[in-house]
């Protein structure tokens, strides 16, 4: 069951029940406190008193097991991608990814770097991209409000896409992580 089986495909849920739970999910987004790049510096003003993201129900959690959202903040090196995959797969369903900055969209200013990847959604399912280099806290709040609307409408299905297309994502991940030493499935 643990670490040696493919993920179970998410079954069909009752629609009305899903709508109610989605509203609850959207208003209590808990974020893994894990900064991957320079954009993590913009999260500090966001969760302290000036911008205060807790008024939207967004809180920082110390472990991925308690969180729903993973923020990819800025450039992502191949070495970090390994850790990010590990963290992402340990988050309980449903889970969402918010990607900050132009580096995650097309490489940004590191487009020709030898160890930062250019297109993030080949490796992980991204629900919301926030553009900017770096995005201001207002822009990140805007991105989160978009994520909340997407969850309420049932359109934030990146985690389902990841489970259903695991082979595609794994193939891409293994292409750039040449010394793959993770367990194949760590849920």
């Amino acid at each position: 069951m643990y670490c040696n089986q493919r993920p179970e495909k998410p079954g069909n849920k009752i629609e009305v029940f899903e709508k109610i739970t989605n509203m609850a999910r959207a208003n209590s987004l808990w974020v893994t406190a894990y900064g991957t790049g320079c954009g993590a510096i913009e999260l500090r003003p966001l969760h302290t008193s000036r911008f205060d993201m807790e008024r939207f129900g967004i809180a920082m959690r110390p472990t991925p097991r308690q969180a729903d959202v993973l923020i990819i903040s800025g450039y992502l090196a191949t070495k970090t991608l390994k850790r990010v995959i590990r963290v992402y797969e340990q988050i309980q369903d449903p889970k969402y990814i918010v990607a900050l900055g132009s580096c995650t969209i097309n490489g940004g200013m590191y487009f020709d770097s030898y160890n930062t990847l250019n297109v993030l959604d080949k490796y992980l399912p991204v629900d919301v991209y926030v553009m900017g280099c770096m995005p201001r806290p207002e822009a990140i709040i805007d991105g989160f409000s978009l994520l909340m609307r997407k969850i309420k409408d049932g359109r934030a299905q990146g985690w389902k896409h990841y489970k259903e297309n695991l082979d595609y994502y794994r193939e891409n991940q293994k292409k750039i992580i040449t010394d793959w030493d993770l367990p194949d499935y760590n849920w």
Partner: protein
Amino acid sequence: MIDKVMKDLEIRFPLLQLVREQHNYLHVKVDKASAIDAVLMAKTSLGFKTLQLISTVDRLEENRFQMTWILENYGTTSILLISADFPREDCIVPSLSDIWPAASAFEREIFEMFGVSFPGNPREGEDFLLEGWKDIPPMRRDFDSEEYSMRVFGERQPREHTDPRQYIGDIVGEWNTPMGAKRARKEKK
């Protein structure tokens, strides 16, 4: 202080170049055979007991690596740079990690980034910054970083149209304005 250091080094080693950058800042260039001896002498008898940095510059046109050891004497706050040229192919430089343990980290980084080998370093070849790197070392100047990036990581495909409505239209319409939300609901029906 630096005057005495200059004299001592001139007596012991054939100096190729000697530049006094500031009143307490000396740059010395020696040949590759006496580089390590000069560093050791600076430590043992001239009082430069702290290793600040080991750095490498890739002089591709002249086919050489310029190694530099930066030493500091805290007592007199003076800095000594000792540099030497090594051939670029199969570059081998003696390790200093048993004299300064901190040198081990610098040497591992240089091994990974330039491919300079340091025999004598007990942790040589261990991963430092890159994991599972299989190409030529990335800081060498004949390594084409952009070509590597395009080959391994790929590029995002550019958009086919320039009409923003096709890409962000539904988001702007649906989410951000009440009118847009109404319109989207109508279109759904």
